[in-house]
């Protein structure tokens, strides 16, 4: 009885969570022009989407920004995590971590508005460059947070052993530390990627007139009302997210297995 109640509740919650998404994608196949009454199956909206050069250019921009910003943020964030673990004083480390988390907890609007002031004061024209810089900026802290736990797991003796065997700083970094923390780096990269693809508010503030990302484009089109091309777009994006999730979990599983195997070898 109790189990039934719990299950009914869960089923209800999951229906609510997924109904809007399924609804959205279902109507991308509808022949009508609105999201009311399904009018029979068609690929038409997908055809419109794939022949909409403006939209395709925006998709390309969005992906370019996401990949480029995640790569740079991963690099800077990993270096940051490395230097945070190398601090000897507890106070320094705590304050660095606090500063690191400022952008994690700040509301998007504050980040967007303050970056807008920042770029305007430096007289940097708004567009691709400012969007890229902003994305790198808000992705760095999540990379740091994903890499840090792996660095903490790394034992001191591992580094000492490498140094005793004559490894230079460079060798230590590239052949001992980086391979050990690579799962954290990958996780950070993926999180950065999703942060970038998901962001609307910050981009909206710093994008200016000539440049647009998907979120901003969806916002301006949604304000004009229903357009089933957006439904088709969400179908494509849902598929893309599924692939990203699958990729992320595959990498995690693989790294866990590798760790497991290593443990078996060493024991």
């Amino acid at each position: 009885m109790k189990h039934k109640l719990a299950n009914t509740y869960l089923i209800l919650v999951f229906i609510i969570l997924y109904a809007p998404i399924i609804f959205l994608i279902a109507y991308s196949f509808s022949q009508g022009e609105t999201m009311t009454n399904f009018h029979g199956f068609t690929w038409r909206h997908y055809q419109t989407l794939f022949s909409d050069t403006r939209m395709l250019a925006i998709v390309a921009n969005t992906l370019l920004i996401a990949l480029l910003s995640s790569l740079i943020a991963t690099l800077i964030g990993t270096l940051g995590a490395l230097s945070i673990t190398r601090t000897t004083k507890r106070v320094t480390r705590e304050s660095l971590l606090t500063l690191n988390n400022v952008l994690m907890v700040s509301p998007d609007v504050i980040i967007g508005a303050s970056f807008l002031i920042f770029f305007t004061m430096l007289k940097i024209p708004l567009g691709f460059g400012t969007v890229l810089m902003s994305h790198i900026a808000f992705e760095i802290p999540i990379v740091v947070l994903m890499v840090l736990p792996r660095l903490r797991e790394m034992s001191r003796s591992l580094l000492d052993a490498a140094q005793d065997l004559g490894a230079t700083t460079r060798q230590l970094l590239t052949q001992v530390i980086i391979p050990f923390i690579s799962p954290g780096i990958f996780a950070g990269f993926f999180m950065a990627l999703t942060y970038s693809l998901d962001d609307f508010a910050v981009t909206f503030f710093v994008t200016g007139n000539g440049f647009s990302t998907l979120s901003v484009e969806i916002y301006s089109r949604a304000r004009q009302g229903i357009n089933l091309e957006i439904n088709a777009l969400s179908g494509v994006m849902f598929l893309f997210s599924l692939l990203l999730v699958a990729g992320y979990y595959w990498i995690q599983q693989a790294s866990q297995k590798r760790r497991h195997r290593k443990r078996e070898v060493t024991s």
Partner: protein
Amino acid sequence: MTKRRTWVYFIPYGLWLALFVIAPVALIIYQSFFDLGQHFTLTNYSTYFRSATYLKMTLNSVWYAFLITLFTGLISYPTAYFIHQLKHRQFWLLLVILPTWINILLKAYAFIGIFSQAGLANQFLTFIGIGPQQILFTNASFIFVATYIQIPFMILPIYNALDDLNPAFVNASKDLGASTWQTFRHVIFPLTLPGVKAGVQAVFIPSLSLFMLTRLIGGNKVITLGTAIEEHFLTTMNWGMGSTIGVVLIVAMIIVMLLTGDQKTKGGTPR
């Protein structure tokens, strides 16, 4: 490793901290002291605290964020609790996370369709005999959609807290004759409170600043702090006043963090 070498690695990260963390916060505070004529003044603050409109808007925004957080919590706690008891809980948890990977604007857009005049919600209302209502562009629809978007962010920390809970405590409580409700009230809930607090933090602060929802779903009837900031920065171009509201939002954020802080006792179970 020499000291000089490690310093070199810190440069990019240090530059980021200085340019994109410290400078922007400083700039928004600095900007809040300038009026439209670029004079250094306190007028923005005095206008803000004297104006009934601004104060009412702030209270309204806090009230809506409170309601959204409350509803999200009421829905999420049982969900996290029941999922934690399931057999394939990792899989179900993944299903909770998946919707967060879908762009928030697409989810808002879906509700424009669902809540429209002839949309799914009104078809249902007609079916059960109430008849079509104006749903889109009401305060209720804003709260509903915001709650919908925030639910996963509340479920996750609560689930993690439940996962950290040592089952020995629950068993001990049952062995000592506590009923299921007593066990929940006096053992499980207090020990998972840090998770709830983390969830409140993750939901309340963004709820103060969801400006796209107030525009797309709330039809500009609900004005949150975020909407006001966006309006001042991008429409009326009064950056000083926008920054002042931004400072208010930052202060609100710090208060929420202090109230829900104390994350050091995370999980609460000595192991």
